[in-house]
């Protein structure tokens, strides 16, 4: 059984339709990358999986079970956690408190605060610092660590490389194998295609609310991807 299935989903922001008839299947242990230009609908798709948006048409199945009308907190309980766009760490909380909030639902699993500090050692000395004082890269590491604290089966990452220095982006992508080893499937959304395609096992290219191209990255040519990305 697939971990996540999105079946014929159409999603609206009031009258504006953002996604048209989307079909995606994510298997356990995959790094599934959604790429596409600004406004293509990638983030909308992630928000629909997280439960912030509800599809007007279509279904979302997690582990074979329909979840499309579950509130976000119940989905976290099932094992779907998020690294939201723009990091969204809690500014007035300390680094450590941010991590503890990630564990709010008490899901059992390999991730503890210590495990997160081992994954991102840069966070350890910042433990007691307010998150508002961290750099962008530190906040991104914290946002990922916070999501891991929920011990997810599926982690949703929205634009994790946005606004970060290449060396920091590299360090974040280097953490991906450790996530997989701990039983966490990754669904990542990116505008920056380069980095993500080196690690992804499956890619879906979004264009104007539809999926223009899907497949295994090694089997797709650069020309195909460019054409799907820009719609030319």
């Amino acid at each position, binding site marked *: 059984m697939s971990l996540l299935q999105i079946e014929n989903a159409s999603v609206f922001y009031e009258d504006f339709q953002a996604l048209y008839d989307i079909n995606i299947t994510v298997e356990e242990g995959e790094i599934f990358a959604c790429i596409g230009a600004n406004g293509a609908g990638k983030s909308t798709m992630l928000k629909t999986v*997280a*439960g*912030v948006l509800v599809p007007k048409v279509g279904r979302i199945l997690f582990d074979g079970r329909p979840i499309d009308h579950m*509130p*976000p*907190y119940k989905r*976290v*309980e099932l094992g779907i*956690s*998020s690294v*939201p766009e723009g990091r*969204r*760490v*809690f*500014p*007035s*909380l300390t680094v450590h*408190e941010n991590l*503890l*909030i*990630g564990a*709010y*639902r008490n899901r059992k699993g390999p991730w503890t605060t210590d495990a997160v500090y081992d994954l991102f050692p840069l966070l350890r000395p910042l433990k007691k610092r*307010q998150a*508002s004082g961290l750099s962008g890269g530190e906040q991104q590491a914290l946002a990922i660590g*916070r*999501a891991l604290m*929920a011990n997810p089966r599926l982690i949703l990452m929205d634009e994790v490389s946005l606004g970060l220095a290449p060396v920091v982006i590299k360090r974040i992508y280097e953490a991906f194998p450790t996530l997989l080893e701990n039983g966490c499937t990754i669904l990542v959304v990116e505008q920056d295609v380069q980095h993500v395609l080196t690690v992804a096992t499956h890619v879906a290219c979004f264009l104007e609310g539809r999926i223009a191209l899907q497949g295994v990255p090694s089997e797709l040519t650069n020309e195909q991807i460019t054409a799907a990305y820009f719609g030319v």
Partner: protein
Amino acid sequence: MDWLNAIIQGILLGGLYSLFAVGLSLVFGTMRLTNLAHGDLTVLPAYIALIIVGSTPRFNPLYAIPMVMVIMFVFGYLLQRGVLNFVVNSGDIAGVIVTFGMSIVIMNGLQEAFTANSQGLDAGQIENMSITLSDQLAIGWLPLIIFILAVVVIAALQLYMSRTKMGRAFRAVSDDQEAARLMGINTKHIWAVAMGVALLIVTIGGVMMGIRTTFNPLLGADRLIFAFEAVIIGGMGSSWGTLLGGVVLGVAQLLGALVFGPAWQILAGHVVFVIILALRPRGFLAKTVTA
């Protein structure tokens, strides 16, 4: 000596104001809801205590306080889940209109049920006991107990917010409610608990005030304003600031009454508030963090 007396009594009165104000600021902090019914919700518990005391002969209202606290917590929780959760994300105006309406409903409901006459809660001897410091200076036990309760409540609230899982969730929701939801926090539940805790705290002040003086259904508006003033003088988001704000307001009122005459008590408080608002708009101990 009159001055010293006014200052001491003002500090003690300030403790009471801060008990009203802490709930207001807790609700505003966690859900950005300006609760205009807050003043009337401080009057309501005194009437609930009146019912409890009235139905049992010789029952001391002091012992009724824990019972009323539980009732008000449940009431606050249900009020939030049943009504106010629907306006939290509908912009400032919706919340103001709904709570303003609630304020009128509570006030008129109390008048209908209990008339507009002043009522009192009789706690017996403690009301008249005092510590004599000198010939002209005495501190009443009751105002002193109220002040100590205010300090204890604020300290407990601080500990609750900083040390417990629930308190952490309150602060996370206050920082960023959508991110909090994505982390598995049920914001509707958190808001309802916040309202419950706010009303539980308000109950202590409301019933104690009912014992100390008389009360009637029309007092809500004044108390709402005092609570607002205490919060703003002290600075948003800081509980100790709210205590300080209450104290500043209480001292200002009683000194005003001493210098200009009793009729000036309330106005003196407002004037000092306006001066502080003009000079220090963020209050004394504001603690607001932005991303």
